[in-house]
C-alpha cells in the first residue's frame, strides 16, 4: 500500500516539473527552484506538516520542487542542460565533484543563522572541508535488516549476506557503489577511495554471493521485507526503521566494523538565479521545528541539535536513526572516485549480473 502511495506521489511530483518549467522564464523574485531526491521532504504525508507550504506562508516565496533519482542524474542535468536550480541536495561524493568542477556557489552563512544549531560533526564535512558551500540536510548509515523467524544466527556484520544456510532468501543492493562497498568491507578494504584492483577483489566476492541471492533490489526491498518474503537484506538505516514498523518479525544489525556513513547536503549551484531565496530556503529547512518534521518523515539522521530535542523519545533513542558517536567514528564516507574507476565499477557490477 505504502509503495503504491509512493508511486502516486512521485507521479504528482513529476507533474510539478511542468510548474517548474513555467517558472524558469520569469524573473519573479518570489520563487525558489529546488532539485532534490524524490520523496525527500515532509509534504503533509501521514498527518505531518507540509514544509513547502509553511515556507511559502512565512516568506511568500513559492517552492518549485523537481526530483532526480541518482546523483549522476543531478550532475548531468547541471552540467549539460540549460537549467536554473537554486537549491540542490547531492550526496557527499557528488558535492566533492561539484566543488572541484566549480559548479557550486559559496554560501553566505550570515543569511543562514540556523547553521549554528548544527552538530559540529556535520559542520565541516569531508567533502567541503573549508565549510563554504554546504549545509547538511540528512545523514544516515547502511545496515542489515533481517527476519528473526528466518535467520537463526544473529548477524554480526555483512558476512551474514554470504550465509549458505539462507540460500535463495538473501537480497542485495542493486547499485554498484553500495554493493561493492559491502563486498570490500568483508575483505578488509576501505571502500571510500578504492582502486580498480580493489574492485576486482570485490567482484570475486560478489560472484561468490550471486548463487545465494534471491534478487538484486532497491525499492522492492520494502515489500520483500515487510511481507516476510525474504530473510535478510542490506539497506539504509532510516528505511529499515520504517520497515520494522510494518513487520514486527524484523530486526536490524549495524555491522560491528562500521558501515557507510552517507549524507546529503543542501548547496546552491552556479546556475542559480535566486541565491537569496535559496539561502532563505536552506535556513528554513534547518529551523528546528521544520528539520524535526522532515526527520519524522524520513527517519534519516537529523544533524540539527535543537530539532533532535523536538523528536519523540523513541525516534531519539533509535539506533537506526541516531547511531552512537562511537559507532559513527568507525564508519567511512564515500570519496569522489575518478570517473574512470567509477565507470569500471559500474561496468563490472553489470557484468556480474549479466553472467
Amino acid at each position, binding site marked *: 500500500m505504502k509503495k*503504491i502511495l509512493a508511486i502516486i506521489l512521485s507521479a504528482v511530483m513529476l507533474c510539478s516539473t511542468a510548474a517548474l518549467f513555467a517558472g524558469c522564464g520569469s524573473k519573479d523574485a518570489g520563487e525558489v527552484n529546488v532539485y532534490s531526491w524524490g520523496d525527500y521532504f515532509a509534504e503533509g504525508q501521514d498527518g505531518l506538516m507540509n514544509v513547502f507550504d509553511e515556507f511559502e506562508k512565512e516568506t511568500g516565496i513559492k517552492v518549485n520542487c523537481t526530483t532526480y533519482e541518482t546523483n549522476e542524474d543531478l550532475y548531468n542535468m547541471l552540467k549539460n542542460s540549460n537549467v536554473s536550480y537554486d537549491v540542490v541536495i547531492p550526496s557527499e561524493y557528488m558535492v566533492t565533484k561539484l566543488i572541484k568542477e566549480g559548479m557550486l556557489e559559496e554560501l553566505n552563512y550570515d543569511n543562514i543563522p540556523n547553521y549554528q544549531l548544527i552538530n559540529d560533526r556535520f559542520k565541516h564535512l569531508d567533502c567541503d572541508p573549508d565549510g563554504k558551500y554546504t549545509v547538511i540536510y540528512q545523514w544516515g548509515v547502511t545496515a542489515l535488516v533481517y527476519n528473526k523467524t528466518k535467520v537463526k544466527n544473529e548477524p554480526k556484520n555483512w558476512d551474514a549476506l554470504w550465509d549458505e544456510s539462507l540460500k535463495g532468501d538473501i537480497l542485495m543492493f542493486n547499485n554498484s557503489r553500495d554493493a561493492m562497498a559491502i563486498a570490500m568491507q568483508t575483505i578488509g578494504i576501505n571502500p571510500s577511495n578504492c582502486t580498480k584492483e580493489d574492485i576486482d577483489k570485490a567482484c570475486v566476492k560478489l560472484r561468490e554471493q550471486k548463487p545465494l541471492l534471491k*534478487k538484486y533490489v532497491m525499492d522492492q526491498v520494502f515489500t520483500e521485507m515487510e511481507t516476510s518474503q525474504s530473510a535478510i537484506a542490506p539497506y539504509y538505516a532510516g528505511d529499515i526503521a520504517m520497515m520494522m514498523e510494518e513487520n514486527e518479525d524484523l530486526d536490524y544489525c549495524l555491522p560491528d566494523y562500521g558501515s557507510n556513513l552517507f549524507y546529503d547536503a543542501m548547496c546552491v549551484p552556479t546556475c542559480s538565479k535566486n541565491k537569496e531565496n535559496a539561502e532563505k530556503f536552506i535556513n528554513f529547512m534547518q529551523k528546528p521545528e521544520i528539520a524535526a518534521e522532515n526527520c519524522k518523515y524520513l527517519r534519516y539522521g537529523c544533524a540539527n541539535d535543537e530539532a533532535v530535542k523536538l523528536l519523540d523519545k523513541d525516534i531519539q533513542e533509535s539506533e537506526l536513526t541516531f547511531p552512537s558517536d562511537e559507532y559513527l567514528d568507525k564508519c567511512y564516507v564515500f570519496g569522489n572516485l575518478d570517473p574512470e574507476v567509477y*565507470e569500471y565499477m559500474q561496468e563490472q557490477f553489470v557484468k556480474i549480473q549479466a553472467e
Partner: protein
Amino acid sequence: MKSKLLSLPYIVWMLVFTMIPLVMIGVTAFTDNSGCFSVDAFVSAFQYTNIFLKSLWIALLSTVICLLLAYPLAYIICQMRPSTQKTVIMLMMIPMWMNFLLRIYAWVLLLQNGGPLDTLLSAIGIHGDYSNNTAAVVVGMVYEYLPFMLLPIYTVMGKIDKSLIEAAQDLGSNKASVFRRVILPLSIPGVISGITMVFVPSASTFVVAQYLGGTDDIMIGDVIDKIFFTNNHIGAALSLVLMVFILLFLVLMNKFGDEEAIA
C-alpha cells in the same frame, strides 16, 4: 503545395525528435571520452551477447504465447454480437488505462510466496515458487502486450467480407476448411502487425525483469539503463546493436507479410 505545407510540422517533428537523436546516438557510440573515433564501445557492447540473446528469446517466447492466446480470442470475439464485442474489447482495454509499473507490481504481489496464487495452489497440495524466475518475466510480458496482439488481429478479422465466407460455404467448404482457406489467410496482415507490435517493445523492455525475475533475469534494456549511468558510449553502442537486431526482424516480417499478401 498545400499538402507540403501541411506535412511541414511532421517533418520538423521527425527531424528534431527522431533523426537528430539517432545521429547523436550514432556519434556517441562511435567515439570515446576524448571525442575521437573509436569502436571500443562496440567491443564492450559485444560482451553482453548472452543478454542480447536472452532478451530476444524472452521476447520471442512472449510473442508466440501472445499470438496463441490472442488469435483464438479474436476469432471468438468476432463471432459475438456487435454489442458484446464492444464490451469484451472494452474489458481488454481497461487494464491498459493503468500505469504499466503498477500492473507489473500487481503481478509481483500475485505471484509472490504466500500470495493469492501460492495460497490457492498450496490448498490443493501444490507447492512451488512462482516469482523471481524467467517464467514470471514471460507472464508479465504476455500480460503487458496481449492487447497489442489482440487489437490488430481483431480489427483485420472483423473486416473480412462475410460474403467470402458464404461463398466458400456455398462451394462446399466445411467449417474447418472455411477457417483454413479463407479466414486464416485474410487475417495474416493483422497477425504480422501484432507480432511486430509485441516483439519490438518486448525485446527492448526494462524494469519487468527487474521486478519479476531472479538474479539471472536481466534484459538488454536493463543493461542499457545501467550502463548509461556512467558510460554513454557503451550505452549508445548497445542501443544501436539492439536497433539493428530489431530492424533485421522488421525487414524479415515485411518480406513474409508481402508474400502472404500476394498469395
